[in-house]
């Protein structure tokens, strides 16, 4: 069936099987930044923003988001300029192999947007649904707290 989905500000109309998961829909558009890391909605590597809120795109059907708006990692930067969250991840070495990173960054953006006053405890709990094997989370947490600070200062 036909669906029309806005992704990173661009409208896409596609014909999909109802069983097509949103993550595969996005990847087939060529937006391969969003990754699949598991099959039990556990790892969060597939996290994107649906109307600004983080969701696990592996557990959403493309047909469910007909007419709605998605932001993926590819849509986060403003042209050449990195989003403060992306910048913070780099500055704090919050990524190694990069596989969990797009989902982690999007989850973090949503987390801070909902509560810019969060502390370390909130960050760790807020990222409970995003698994990383490389970093041990330490630098990710530091990056998110840093980006939250810049949000409180009005940077985003």
């Amino acid at each position, binding site marked *: 069936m036909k669906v029309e989905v806005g992704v990173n500000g661009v409208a896409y109309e596609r014909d999909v099987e109802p069983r097509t998961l949103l993550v595969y829909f996005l990847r087939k558009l060529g937006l391969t930044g969003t*990754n699949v890391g*598991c099959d039990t909605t556990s790892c969060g590597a597939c996290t994107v923003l649906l109307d600004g809120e983080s969701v696990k795109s592996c557990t959403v059907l493309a047909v469910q988001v007909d007419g709605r708006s998605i932001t993926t990692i590819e849509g986060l930067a403003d042209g050449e300029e990195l989003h403060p969250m*992306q910048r913070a991840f780099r500055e704090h*070495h919050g990524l190694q*192999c990069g596989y969990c990173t797009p989902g982690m960054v999007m989850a973090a953006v949503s987390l801070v947007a909902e509560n810019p006053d969060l502390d370390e405890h909130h960050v*760790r709990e807020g990222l409970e649904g995003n698994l990383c*094997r490389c*970093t*041990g989370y330490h630098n990710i947490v530091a990056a998110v707290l840093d980006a939250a600070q810049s949000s409180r200062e009005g940077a985003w």
Partner: protein
Amino acid sequence: MSILGNRVLRKEDQKFLTTGGTYVEDVPLEGAVHIVYVRSPMAHARIRSIETSEALESPGVVAVFTAQDIDLDPMPPGAPFANRAMTRPWLADGVVRFVGDMVAAVVADTRERAVDGAELVFVDYETLTPVVDASTAADNPTLVHEDAGTNVVLRLPDDFVSAGIEQVAAEVDLFEGCDVVIRQRMVNQRVAPCPLEVRASAAKWEDGHLTQWSTTQAPHSVKDTLVQLFELQPDQVRVIAPDVGGGFGAKIGGYPEELFVAWVSRRIDRPARWVETRSESMMTLGHGRGQIQEAELGGTRDGKLLGYKLTITQDAGAYPNFGAFLPVMTRLMLTGVYDITKTEFSSCSVATNTNPTVAYRGAGRPEATAAIERMVDIFADEIGMDPAELRRKNLIGKERFPFTTAVGTTYDIGDYEQALDRVLEAAGYAELREEQRQRRDSGDTKQMGIGLSTYVEVTNGIPGSEFGAVEVLADGKARVRTGTSPHGQGHVTAWAMLVADQLGIPVEDVEVIHGDTDEVPRGVGTFGSKSLQSGGVAVHQAAERVVEKAKKLVADLLEANPNDIELDKENRRFHVAGTPSVTKSWAELVEASGDAGLSAEVDFAAPGPTFPFGAHIVVAEVDTETGHVSLERIIAVDDAGRLMNPLIAEGQVHGGLAQGVAQALMEEMCYDDQGNPITANLADYAFVSAAELPSFETHPMETPTPINPLGAKGIGESGTIGSTPAVQNAVVDALSHLGVRHVDMPTTPIRVWSAIKEAKGDR
């Protein structure tokens, strides 16, 4: 001012943070078919029949293959010395030997159709008794491989003695002079490596030339295997490891799933791709650890450790792979940081009807450290001595290096006492013990445990050389080709730093190429924490040679003596000493060098392995009513010699700590008694999240090694090796006043609660 030793941000990150990396699943492959493997749901069974007709009629299905279709030599043996009768077939041939064993390959136009088609392959199995318990496998009359005549894969030292590789060890009176001998059985449990990216492989043939993309840590090794298998010339095979989403040792060797993709592609004359699911990966990506350990430690009542014995049963799984050889590595590091002069070691690696074990972060060395660090704590408890003091009394002194241990391993350099002192100070050890005492006195429900470990490990343990090449380009920038194969370790930045350090060309102008066998002529890959001290040194030396060549060229051009040529790194120009106004740039030299170009290649073989070391303390809080363990502080002192980029080094320690802690606290790959995996997805398997961990307190220490010109040891596995026993010791320490002496890993709530109950005498 060298750039080395600075916290340089990674060049890799821009891509990962904006468009994402390009992993094997992302590689565009026009017209590719998709492969799904039909896998056995039985741990041990005879295949009576395989019905493929319905699958073949399923929409979009292009082919279905079973063992009888395969015209390919058997897989190369899983490990050296492996019993040939235990060789893994491409697809199960008559017998399936673990849940997940591949029975058929379904090939279709799309992944969806391949999955649908795979459901229509019907296999009729005749159940056989599975061998699941490794501890009884050696004597189990049921054989995993009938033709092998045994379930035993490797016995140490017996098999190495028979093979003439080593001598029979001299008899020792192991516990002579010991007032105290303690014994403990411990399990170093099977775990799942869980890289965030599962395995994937893609193949394309063009005019007899194969291009294979693979989630591998060792692309050149995969290439060698493919050349051999398909009887091709080396220039007919190209293997590419694009971005790889973590490996941790489990993605070193070529799995049949991956290599078979090339065969399918050639057979049906279309590009082909396979991407596993996470559940599939949990069952069939090589598992880690899997040792049952019986340890005995003897010493005097005033704390001098004299004799140590370790007996290991290693679970190798159904088709023995590197996992069968982990005890070799365990034995290498048997006595750890301690000066224990009498030892005994034996091991028996056995086949079972489970997924094969492979190398996993530490690969045999975490097992060694976990065993001895646990025993040292039990010994301390037995003689009533503080565990830090007992360790201090037995550490190899810093003046004794290079030090050869009782098992013949020669450690390069170390200062174990300083590591211990630093971690005790960083932790505030005395204050921690005081708080623990107060909680014990008040009978607090939440008790505090302080767990210590002092460790040493071996990196670059398998001899060999690594390739590195540096070339200066016409525009004055540089290009590195490295045989290492990073998948998160930051070599693109670190090797650029090594070149910047020698050539003055800035990091952003140094391109580093890796992972493509067409672009890099030879290489070993990245595992065993070897890359910096082999491939990094190769790059460093190649850079040095480029500078030497450049100086000679400048000398010719300026009619001077090469010894009088200086490189002004800041301005990237060469000049004669004393005549700074007449200079040559890198670009000018490249032009002047003509066809010869300005480059150098090095194959660097380190004279030996190196031995990073450290000391960790974990503070744990144990809820004695529920058995729940919470990790309050994780303090790590790790010495990996000279650090090239402390930012990257810390990241490696952090990742290692998380995995090591997770094994002690919650992760375990479980099979039931019928050989069914029961933790075969990320909801059931306790992959640790950020919510279970505190931030780490890491304290670097640098004792440069004399082994290589960079003074660098490996660091990738240290965090894992030191932290596992520190956590386990902390949990036991929290309960030792209740009479608990040991709790096996993972220290889950039910295990902790049961240990408390047992110690209290309630059954």
